[in-house]
């Protein structure tokens, strides 16, 4: 293979990886905050895609302009999922982790049902967008515009997330709640509020990813599934709860996928990702960057 095409594969893998990281980081954030695996994470992505789609149908504005609206909307969806469902699941007297698995799983099925009802199972796509179908050439590489912008958005949001976690009171409150949710009341923090905002933040991040994805991907009620699967792999690979881990693991998964797609039939590309994941599980069960 020539060096240019190697670089081409690397670049597209990197861009897709950045998007995977953005999809996964909210899952990791919520898990780290309260040890809850959100099985409706893929459905949050799907809701974001439909949100952009519906807004586009109504306003005909470009998805890039609608992305902030979808992100904000998903913030509300996440906060509501906590306040309306997860909060009650956590009150279970026994078997709390089972109860919360079934609660978020039930939420996933519910959201899919609602999408099925309102949008039918048809595949939809957003056409005539500023970025869709365009490529941008940088130094001889041709990069699809939506992925390039998506990658940039991902980088910006990761920097923002890092600043939020390390510089703000809210970030410290998130960290404190994750360390000892029973002790934050001692400094006047309402842990339920932190949990709700944490869920909102996690959903908003996957919402931003969904808005980008809606530009170049089909939209249908089950669209979240394969991406959620990748997100679980990314989170496990990067270490449950680790933000930096999600970024690194997302990129790794994107690269592995891109390179194996060249070597083996594309339909088998996921096999390589899961093989990598299995290898990591055996060698480092807490993920590459997880706390041991």
């Amino acid at each position: 293979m020539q060096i240019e095409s190697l670089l081409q594969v690397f670049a597209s893998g990197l861009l897709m990886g950045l998007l995977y990281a953005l999809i996964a980081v909210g899952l990791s954030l919520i898990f780290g905050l309260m040890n809850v695996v959100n099985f409706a994470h893929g459905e949050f992505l799907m809701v974001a895609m439909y949100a952009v789609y519906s807004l586009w149908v109504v306003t005909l504005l470009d998805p890039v302009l609608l992305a902030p609206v979808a992100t904000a909307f998903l913030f509300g969806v996440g906060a509501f999922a906590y306040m309306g469902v997860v909060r009650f699941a956590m009150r279970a007297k026994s078997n709390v982790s089972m109860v919360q698995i079934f609660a978020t799983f039930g939420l996933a099925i519910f959201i899919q049902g609602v999408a099925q009802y309102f949008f039918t199972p048809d595949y939809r796509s957003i056409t005539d967008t500023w970025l869709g179908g365009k490529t941008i050439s940088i130094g001889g590489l041709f990069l699809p515009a939506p992925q390039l912008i998506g990658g940039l958005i991902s980088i910006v949001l990761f920097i923002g997330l890092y600043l939020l976690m390390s510089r703000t009171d809210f970030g410290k409150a998130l960290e404190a709640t994750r360390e000892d949710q029973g002790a934050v009341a001692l400094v006047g923090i309402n842990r339920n509020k932190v949990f709700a905002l944490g869920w909102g933040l996690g959903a908003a991040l996957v919402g931003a990813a969904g808005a980008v994805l809606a530009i170049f991907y089909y939209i249908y009620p089950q669209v979240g599934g394969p991406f959620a699967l990748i997100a679980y792999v990314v989170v496990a690979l990067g270490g449950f709860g680790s933000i930096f881990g999600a970024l690194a693991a997302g990129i790794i998964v994107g690269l592995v996928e891109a390179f194996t797609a060249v070597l083996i039939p594309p339909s088998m590309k996921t096999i390589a990702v899961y093989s990598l994941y299995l290898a990591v599980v055996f060698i480092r069960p807490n993920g590459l960057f997880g706390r041991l």
Partner: protein
Amino acid sequence: MRHEGINSGMSPNASTATPLLAVRGLTTAYRGLIAVSDVSIDVDQGEIVVVAGANGAGKSTLLKSVAGLERARSGAITFFGERIEAMPGHVITERGLAYVPENRRLFPGLSVSDNLRLGSYLYRKRADREAPLERVFSLFPRLKERLQQRAGTLSGGEQQMLAIGRALMTRPRLLMLDEPSQGIMPKLVDEIFAAVQSIRDTGVTILLVEQRLAESLEIANRAYVLQTGRLILSGTAAEVRDNPDVRKAYLGI
């Protein structure tokens, strides 16, 4: 269930002003096992009040109930003129009642500096955050030397200082301390007792649970003694110190 209401309290030192904290007929149970039974105590503004008693007497349960971390089964708790027994813990902190639990409950993975910063989470103005910080540093200078160290790696005594410091950052009216001397070497114990006294001198009322009765009676105004969940004795520090039962059971005289 026993609950005689407001008038069942034994108020040893009936003061003219209403107490800052008034606990009346408090009963708290863990899954049916009563740990605190019909306890009434008063803490007046500016006092240091000690609660003593053997292991398992219910001292910690009393403080947890006041702080809203354990729900009272019955009884009334009034703080600064407001009923707080049904309030969530974070609201009670907001009202000006700070609590340093037995096991300190620091955020071990966060730095000393972040733990203190979280203490002032309720305040937005720079001055409201910096003034108490200066006070904490003057009380416990060694915290200032260890700002970037993770709280979990501090020594036991330093962790106690940080826990008290974090509580002071909430700018409390009343500070409840649960056995601050526990597991700390004697030299640091003196330092902590001196700090408690100077915290009181800056206008923060103190409710102190302590096993080291002799030392704590030296700085206290009044004391209560609990035994298997019940109040068996109360009075001024001198009265409690001179009580023959206390001398035999707690002071080893």
